[in-house]
């Protein structure tokens, strides 16, 4: 495998791992997202520019890309689950704010519907 594509794959693997590690750290996660995007774009560009080389190392390259794809799918799944929990939290907090407003007798200020943002 050429040094160039090896470096690109390492970059992709590295940023994918960072995404997995930094899921709770918004700034770091978003930085890693940007770097992963650039790594993927560079690999795709290399495949387009170096078809012969790509064909020669197709099996290994495919395995590495598939592995990153699978890891990304896991991250995406975790993101979706975490978001669903937050959405439920948001609905719960809306209901509780309504209860609090009702207890304070703020009839006019009471919201007429729940927010189901999501």
């Amino acid at each position: 495998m050429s040094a160039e594509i090896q470096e690109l794959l390492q970059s992709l693997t590295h940023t994918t791992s960072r995404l997995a590690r930094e899921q709770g750290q918004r700034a770091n996660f978003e930085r890693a997202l940007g770097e992963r995007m650039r790594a993927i774009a560079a690999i795709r560009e290399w495949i387009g520019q170096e078809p012969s080389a790509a064909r020669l190392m197709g099996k290994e390259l495919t395995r590495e890309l598939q592995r990153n794809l699978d890891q990304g799918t896991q991250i995406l799944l975790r993101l979706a689950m975490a978001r669903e929990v937050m959405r439920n939290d948001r609905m719960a907090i809306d209901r509780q704010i309504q209860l609090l407003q009702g207890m304070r007798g703020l009839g006019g200020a009471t919201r007429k519907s729940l927010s189901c943002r999501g």
Partner: protein
Amino acid sequence: MGTTSSTSALTPLTFTGVSQYASDFQTVIDHAVAVAQLPITQLQNEESNISSQEQLATGIQTAVANLATTVTDLGNLGTNQGISGTSSNTSLVQVDNTSMTAPGSFQISNIQSLASAASATTTNGYADATTTTVSSTGTMQLVVNGQDYTLDLTGSGQNNLNGLASAINAANAGVTASVIDTGTGSTPYYLAISADSTGETSMQLVDDPDGTDTQIALTSTTGSDASFQVNGQTVTSTTNTISNVIPGMTFTLTGTTTGNESATLTAATDPSQISTLLQTFVSQYNSLEQLLAAQIGPNAGLLTGNSIVYGVGSALQSVINYQGTGTNSVQNLADLGISVSSTGEMSFNQSTFNALTSSQIQAAFSFLGSSTSGFGATAGYLTTYSDPTNGLIAGEENEWQTDTTNMNNQITTLTAQANQMQKTLDDALESADEQISQMQSQQQELTASLQSLNYTSYGYNNTNNAINSAPVMSSSSS
């Protein structure tokens, strides 16, 4: 992926696995628990309990106060020996109230006149109430029963009939002036003055009292005093309601007599006053007893265990078990026909009461005492609880008010926390939407790269298209 365990809605979930995502999820779950742990349900229960307790206590307070009033009224009967006044001819005179402490009889005769209020109207009319001048100088004088009241009409728009009426009304002369519009002739407006109270009253109206001193012609009636005789003695009064002639009795003259017509006012003991109040006492006692019983026992209400319930119950016992002193033939409520059943229900036997002799009735008055002695004084046991300012129930209510204030403060704090959580969650959701969108985009790019590689290597696409099995989220999904 880690594993989760949960024992209740409020038990924090704990990731015990070794997944690299565990810490992220733990943060999310901790957040959810924080939302659920806002003690709003607890506050709601407290609010409901306090409100219910206040209502129950207020009900008891009212019932105790009513009973205390009746006990005091019974004591007052002891003071005035249950004497009430009656008139033999209510078309001539009516008895309004009696606070006499001894029987008596009074003849009202020769009612020659009833008291009436004086009134006057200007003899001449005025063309207009707002533009026609009424005073040559702007200064007039009202004379009521010899008392002078200066009327200043020099202000803008005051020297007219309306201004004069206003000035008279502002003079506090015991009369009220108004402008009458007869609607006829060229001078339809007249000033009318009437005395505020009955009795003979003279009225004069003078223009320019310090100069020409011109009398304004008035058509008037001077009013009259009431004139009558009490036991042959002539009395005159400026009012028809007389309270200073017969000590302890207020009566009202309602008509004049003709010939030898007269009315007899009689003050006599009326035992039915006692029985009427005793019936009220029994009814109020049973109502209060029911309220207290509802707070005692296995099915007791929210005031169970509250000192008010037992305190009021004890006060009730002190009232109903009151024993008179001395050798009086009436020593307790039972002697008046009151009994309490085994279930605690009180009743009044009218027949027992009706069978009391005159001397026993007198003994009953002695037993009842006054508002500060005898049975009447036992009202104090009750007002200790029912007094709206210093009573023990009012004290308890004040504590509940303090609880309510504290609870409102808690609600304010919780609302602020909840609003902050709401904002944090909004930010987090927005961020999650953006991250998911980017992640999906990258997965699609990666899948495209794999497809491209497969075409290059094998001429076909055998990619295990993971993106198709990945969750697809969008910011608009819910």
